């Protein structure tokens, strides 16, 4: 680029829309990355095999960057949807700060970097799982199913459920019942969590042509789905307590958390929209709030059990 062309761009006002480093970072969906980092870290820490802290740090970084890369690929593919919906209209591509081709390049480059570095730092299985997660989120979810089925959030949840399994694979080099149950916990938690939100937030997914259960099948059916997925979620959450990474502390606390979550889902199922509108969706909002702490506390409890196990206080 010549100086003249740079000056021309600057003079026609485009410089105010020029991307800063933060805009490129925003492509990586930092808030999603924080959940990925936490759950992957738990998967790594609770594994029965210890690894060097620096290798653990690099592994978590690779998983976070890989998740961010899939976020960038998602923003590249969904730029048309993002520009229509209010919630996403300020993302870097619809805001005109980052070119779609830049997002594609960054997404592909970071995907390659994170997978290869994870392989070099740890093992093939962990790297393969990370590669599959990126592929699953970017291709299976974003490109294929998101616009095709109202069950999109269920399938998309699988991509968010892989990080603890990758963390476990980093340490052990394998997959086990423990890592499969950690995967299942996030997988089963995602639908009731998201649909509780969908019940009280007016969405513009319909305007963007994305089928959401609340709009394709109606809100009563969505309430049924919340209850059914919660029924699947409870045994998974409690079952984790009987594995080698669980224990009495996890089990006792998980029992209370699951009882509360099921009670919330049950109340939401009992209501209709007239009752919900009368109290401004108070129960739906409560279920959404407790769903946030539900997942955080379950993984936090696994960390507590890991600490107790390291002190020799393990019952099973």
């Amino acid at each position, binding site marked *: 680029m010549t100086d003249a062309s*740079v000056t021309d761009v600057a003079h026609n006002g485009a410089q105010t829309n020029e991307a800063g*480093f933060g805009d490129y970072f925003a492509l990586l969906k930092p808030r999603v990355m924080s959940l990925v980092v936490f759950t992957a870290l738990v998967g790594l820490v609770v594994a029965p095999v210890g690894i060097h802290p620096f290798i653990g740090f690099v592994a978590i970084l690779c998983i976070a960057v890989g998740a961010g890369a899939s976020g960038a690929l998602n923003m590249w593919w969904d730029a048309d949807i993002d520009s229509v919906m209010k919630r996403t209209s300020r993302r870097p591509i619809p805001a005109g700060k980052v070119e779609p081709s830049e997002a594609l390049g960054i997404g592909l480059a970071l995907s390659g970097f994170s997978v290869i570095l994870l392989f070099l730092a740890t093992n093939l299985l962990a790297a393969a799982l990370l590669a599959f997660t990126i592929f699953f989120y970017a291709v299976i979810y974003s490109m294929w199913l998101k616009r095709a089925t109202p069950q999109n959030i269920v399938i998309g949840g699988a991509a968010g459920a892989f990080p603890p399994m990758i963390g476990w694979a980093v340490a052990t080099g394998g997959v086990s019942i423990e890592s499969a149950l950690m995967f299942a916990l996030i997988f089963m938690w995602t639908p009731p969590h998201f649909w509780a939100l969908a019940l009280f937030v007016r969405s513009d997914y319909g305007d963007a042509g994305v089928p959401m259960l609340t709009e394709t099948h109606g809100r009563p059916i969505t309430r049924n789905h919340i209850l059914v997925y919660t029924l699947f979620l409870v045994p998974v959450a409690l079952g984790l307590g009987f594995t080698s990474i669980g224990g009495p502390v996890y089990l006792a606390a998980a029992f209370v958390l699951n009882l509360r979550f099921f009670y919330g889902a049950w109340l939401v199922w009992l209501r209709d929209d007239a009752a919900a509108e009368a109290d401004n969706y108070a129960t739906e909002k409560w279920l959404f709030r407790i769903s946030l702490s539900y997942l955080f506390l379950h993984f936090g409890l696994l960390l507590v059990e890991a600490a107790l196990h390291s002190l020799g206080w393990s019952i099973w």
Partner: protein
Amino acid sequence: MAIKVEHELHSRRKGRNLGVGLVLVGLVGIVFGLTVVKVLNLENIAQFERFDHVARPQLEPSASEGTQ
């Protein structure tokens, strides 16, 4: 027209350039750190001691088997 050393582009893109620079420095640090950790954690340092521009037949497994 050449870009001057003090062109406004430099100050405008300072944050972005600084960010990319820090990422690259971080990447170098990670690769260096990984190398140090991997080498120090080898059970047998002979696994790391290989050809160094001079043939080292004593490092070959067949050589060590022959001496035993």
